[in-house]
């Protein structure tokens, strides 16, 4: 959608700059006058929250990098040095570690929002695909970051995850050796993970730029899933979306601050406060909570190669979602049957996460297998079939009609007034 007003700077310097590098106009059209559907709810603020958390992670990460030492003999001690000696080091470390959890929490909510409201459907397929790419980059970045403190979990998570590649026939072992830079996880592995952990967030920034660009080309989806048809369906991004996003960012920061200041080690694993010991594997290796669903899927399959393939497939299948869902109707608000399968999917994902934290025995394995079957069936069977057979509810005629009930333009006289004016 094109901007309704062009940027007319009143400031002489901005006029001078606008002719040479129209960044003022870009910000103006993208984030000030940008037409935003007037029916967006708070689930739409998580994109802004994610951008904020990306900035938080990069800032805290860079200042931590000023004190961290990426050497097997010093890494663990340098993290303790940060916690004990560096001014506010404890705060920066806890903010970065818990920030990663908050980053993934917001990302999963953002993904579930997209799935519920059909934000991946035409013409937003590339937007969705860019988002899946960002998620995969986040997973890689988080994994490498967790290795850096060089605790027991850091070391053994690195060993287990890099060993996944040995499942690949013929070239698997060579790939693993190449990843390690040695005969096992060691100094070369730590160094290269540090370099890549510093790099990938900036790659994420680039892909986020493309993601926002793709979003602005197609325009935002909205809870009713119907395209804006006129000016009455939209409002200017600033001040409405700006303030709504800022408000929920602050609420989100309250949750973030709760973890950082009151329970900073709740989401972590105590074994990571033990320096890495290559001769002793911890009794229960688990990744951080945000990887647990994928971990459960991996362990549910009894075959090594098929387990790795299932793990990869659980992410790769997301790329195809725009084409697997055959329904013409976008939003689950108007798809009563789909809605139930969707919430079952959410329960399955949370269930897989919980199962991933349990030892792979008995009923835990049974339920992990059942939930894994549902996970793939949702994408490969339920969505394609449902799109064709589901009876959807009738869509509203316009967004304004859905929100205001009357389709009246902005500023028109309201229906008969109630008791008192605000």
């Amino acid at each position, binding site marked *: 959608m094109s901007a309704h007003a062009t940027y007319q700077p009143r400031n002489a310097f901005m006029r001078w700059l606008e002719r040479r590098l129209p960044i003022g106009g870009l910000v103006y059209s993208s984030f000030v006058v940008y037409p935003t559907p007037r029916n967006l709810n708070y689930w739409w603020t998580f994109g802004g929250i994610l951008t904020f958390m990306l900035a938080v992670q990069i800032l*805290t990460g860079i*200042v931590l990098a*000023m*004190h961290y030492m990426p050497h097997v003999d010093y890494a663990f001690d340098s993290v303790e*040095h940060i916690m004990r000696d*560096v001014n*506010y*080091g404890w705060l920066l470390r806890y903010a970065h570690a818990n920030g990663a959890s908050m980053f993934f929490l917001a990302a999963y909510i953002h993904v579930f929002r997209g799935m519920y409201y059909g934000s991946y459907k035409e013409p937003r397929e590339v937007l969705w695909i860019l988002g899946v790419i960002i998620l995969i980059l986040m997973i890689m970045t988080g994994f490498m970051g967790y290795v850096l403190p060089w605790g027991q979990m850091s070391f053994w998570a690195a060993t287990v995850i890099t060993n996944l590649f040995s499942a690949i026939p013929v070239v698997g072992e060579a790939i693993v050796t190449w990843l390690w830079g040695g005969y096992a996880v060691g100094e070369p592995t730590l160094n290269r993970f540090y370099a890549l952990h510093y790099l990938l967030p900036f790659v994420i920034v680039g892909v986020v730029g493309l993601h926002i660009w793709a979003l602005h080309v197609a325009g935002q989806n909205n809870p009713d899933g119907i395209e804006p048809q006129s000016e009455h369906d939209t409002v200017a991004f600033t*001040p409405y979306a700006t303030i709504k996003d800022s408000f929920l960012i602050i609420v989100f920061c309250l949750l973030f601050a709760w973890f950082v200041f009151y329970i900073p080690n709740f989401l972590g694993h105590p074994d990571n406060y033990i320096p890495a010991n290559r001769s002793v594997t911890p009794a229960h290796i688990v990744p951080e909570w945000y990887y647990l669903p994928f971990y459960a899927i991996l362990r549910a399959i009894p075959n090594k190669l098929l387990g790795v393939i299932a793990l990869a497939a659980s992410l790769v299948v997301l790329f195809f979602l725009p084409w697997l869902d055959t329904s013409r109707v976008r939003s689950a608000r108007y798809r009563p049957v789909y809605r139930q399968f969707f919430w079952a999917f959410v329960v399955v994902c949370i269930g897989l996460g919980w199962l991933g934290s349990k030892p792979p025995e008995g009923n835990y394995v049974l339920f992990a297998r059942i939930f894994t079957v549902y996970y793939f069936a949702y994408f490969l069977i339920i969505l394609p079939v449902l799109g064709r057979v589901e009876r959807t509810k009738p869509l509203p005629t316009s967004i304004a009609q859905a929100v205001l009930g009357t389709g009246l333009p902005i*500023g028109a006289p309201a229906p008969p007034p109630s008791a008192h004016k605000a």
Partner: protein
Amino acid sequence: MTMMSATESATEPTRRDFLFIATGAAAAVGVIGALWPLVAQMNPDASTIAAGAPIEVDLSPIAEGQVIKVFWRSKPIFINHRTKKQITDAQDVDVAKLRDPQPDSARIKAGHEQWQVLIAICTHLGCIPLADQGPYDGYFCPCHGSVYDTSGRIRQGPAPLNLALPPYEFVSDTKIRIG
């Protein structure tokens, strides 16, 4: 109606204006509070400060005319056991004619004129000067030719100030504590 419309006439500030400014101020305080640790973390940390604790130096092994170098807070420090001639040369000076006027008495501890304790960093651009060198038999900086006398005061060359003094005191006649 947009919230950004400015009132043309000079009307009273509204409640909305007050709320805007109050919210903006609260947000600014919050942002500064959140960003402060990012700035403060670059200041010396507790272990660096602990490593900069005062040191004690035993003066008894230092012979007359000998200069030793110790480190305190990563700075080189000259401890010079001055000879009688060096002491009188340092005292017989027209202080007013110096580039950085300072009598020798202000650069030693009373009763211990033979002990010169200086930070061995040239006040020009930071090289370590050479001891017992130069036309005054004081210190000479080979980088750009600054010449200091036996009191460590600048006499020739580009350095603007006398060699600095570290904080120190005599614990006993043969021991000083620097820092």
